[in-house]
């Protein structure tokens, strides 16, 4: 019986490995194409491991050629990191406020925040654009950070965790004379650290992958993020597919690394609330 079970498991694992490999073929093809000289890209049968290599040439052209990939990268890192920091800070403050401060109008305000969650971002993109031009936030990284930092999602997610902290902790701190600022910073924040990490990583990934906001709220090429950059690069490089693939690999790679390092947080975060960008 046990032997039979192990046999089934092994067979299922092998079958799933094949399905899984088929599932990620687009990535494998992308990577392999980025290593090849241009004329070999569409060779058939597909040369998964290139016969001729042009790895160095392709990536050098992408990174140090006409398109400033270094700048795109730096812009994206800057915007993603700052958005993450601001968003985690603002969201966790609001989450603490809704969970543990007892003030007038709390329920009404919470309902309002809840309602903003239902508004699809594309429904308000036109007035946002007008507002940003008026506030001089258009075509600036500050504007992009602002637009990514205020989302009700983080507040909800983190509020659940703040609510999970036992009230006795807080009561004890209050008896010791601690105010809300101190309770928030010294007691609750350390306790919800895993949740902050989860939300932070997700926010970073979403900002890194964001395409629509940079498209609408940026104009200057020197401010472009990587998503905007590779799209421009792809439409301007026309038929240099090996280069385009080197560009897309460059855009995805950092996230894959972050995902593999922080997979526990990412997967838990997704599974927990089934949250979605």
């Amino acid at each position, binding site marked *: 019986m046990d032997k039979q079970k192990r046999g089934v*498991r*092994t067979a*299922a*694992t092998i079958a*799933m490995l094949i*399905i*899984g490999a088929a599932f*990620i073929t*687009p*990535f494998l*093809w*992308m990577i392999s*194409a980025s290593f090849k000289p241009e004329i070999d890209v*569409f060779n*058939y*049968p597909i040369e998964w491991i290139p016969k001729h290599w042009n790895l160095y040439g392709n990536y050098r052209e992408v990174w140090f050629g006409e398109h400033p990939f270094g700048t795109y990268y730096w812009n994206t890192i800057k915007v993603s990191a700052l958005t993450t920091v601001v968003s985690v800070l*603002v969201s966790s403050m*609001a989450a603490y*406020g809704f969970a543990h*401060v*007892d*003030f*007038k109008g709390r329920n009404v305000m919470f309902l*309002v*925040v809840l309602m903003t969650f239902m*508004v699809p971002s*594309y*429904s*308000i*993109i*036109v*007035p946002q*654009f*007008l507002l940003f031009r008026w506030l001089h936030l258009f075509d600036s990284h500050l504007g992009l950070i*602002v*637009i990514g930092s*205020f989302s009700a999602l983080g507040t909800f997610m983190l509020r659940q965790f703040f609510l999970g902290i036992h009230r006795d902790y807080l009561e004890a701190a*209050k008896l010791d*004379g601690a105010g*809300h*600022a101190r309770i928030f910073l010294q007691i609750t924040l350390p306790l919800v650290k895993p949740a902050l990490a989860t939300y932070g990583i997700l926010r970073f*990934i979403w900002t*890194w992958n964001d*395409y*629509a906001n940079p498209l*609408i709220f940026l104009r200057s090429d020197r401010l472009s993020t*990587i998503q905007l950059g590779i799209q421009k690069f*792809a439409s301007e490089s026309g038929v240099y597919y090996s280069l385009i693939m080197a560009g*897309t690999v460059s*855009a995805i790679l950092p*996230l894959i690394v972050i*995902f593999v390092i922080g*997979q526990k947080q*990412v*997967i838990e975060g*997704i*599974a*927990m609330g*089934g949250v*979605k960008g």
Partner: protein
Amino acid sequence: MNNTILKTARSKPTPRVRSAARRRETLSGYIFIGPMFLGLLILTIIPTLLTFILSFSDWSFISGVDKLKFTGFKNFSRLFDDDVFLTSLKNNLWLLLVVPIQLIISLVLAVIIDRLVYWKGLFKIIFFMPYISSIVAVSICFQLLFQPSYGPINQFLRSLGVSSPPTWLADIRYALPSVMIIMVWVGIGFCLIVYMAALQSIPKDLYESADIDGAGAWTRFSRITLPLVSPTTFFLLVTGFISSFKAFDIIKVLTEGKPAYSTSVVTYYLYTTAFENLKTGYASSMALILFGFVLLITLFQLYGQKKWVNY
């Protein structure tokens, strides 16, 4: 800061002191919630109201506020004579089909991974890869894979003996299904992770007692697994529907609505109307309709949760 007040409030609960403590508490509440609330007010609430107002106007933002003209429901009546808009809306409805397909595939995969295989973690990562990757990079890659004459997909089909394989994104009949295939592929990982979490919360002894009763694999799946993950299915269905209405990046990068608007969606048409044709008022009326659809799905969720889900 307010610790002394709280302390005195506790030791001497006279009404005046208590109300001072209350005020302190309310003040700190506003301080904690203030930044988020202010941000949402400026970035979401006010723009929502503006969308509502602008959708009844005929206006282009480059011509200055004094040129703004209110035209009542004219935008909306125009919308329903606008073939591009109607096509886009119809395409959005087709895209809803992506969600159930995604759910079926990911539930099957989740059950297999959860019960039958070694290295669960590895499989989670594999199937989650497309979701973590940027849709821009994925779209650019698929443009090449679907390339009609020398793209790998058609070369493969030809080697199997298909003499004239479809031209995928270039063909008016195949373009939307091609987009849907990519959307299914991208979204499976998300559903899979959520389903796996749901499967883990099903008590193991339910399956054990089913084993004792001699239930087969199908019975166990249809009588235990399926009903017990139904809240998850419902949740994924609703969030999937909502996010399929928000599909924009993939269309913008992959097809730009081509060929002949066969892949245009409401968000994409809204974008071109607002930022390429600069018709602010008309675009806002589309935005309002989009909002209406998302609201409708949300209401359906609130209503359906009680009716459809078997716990």
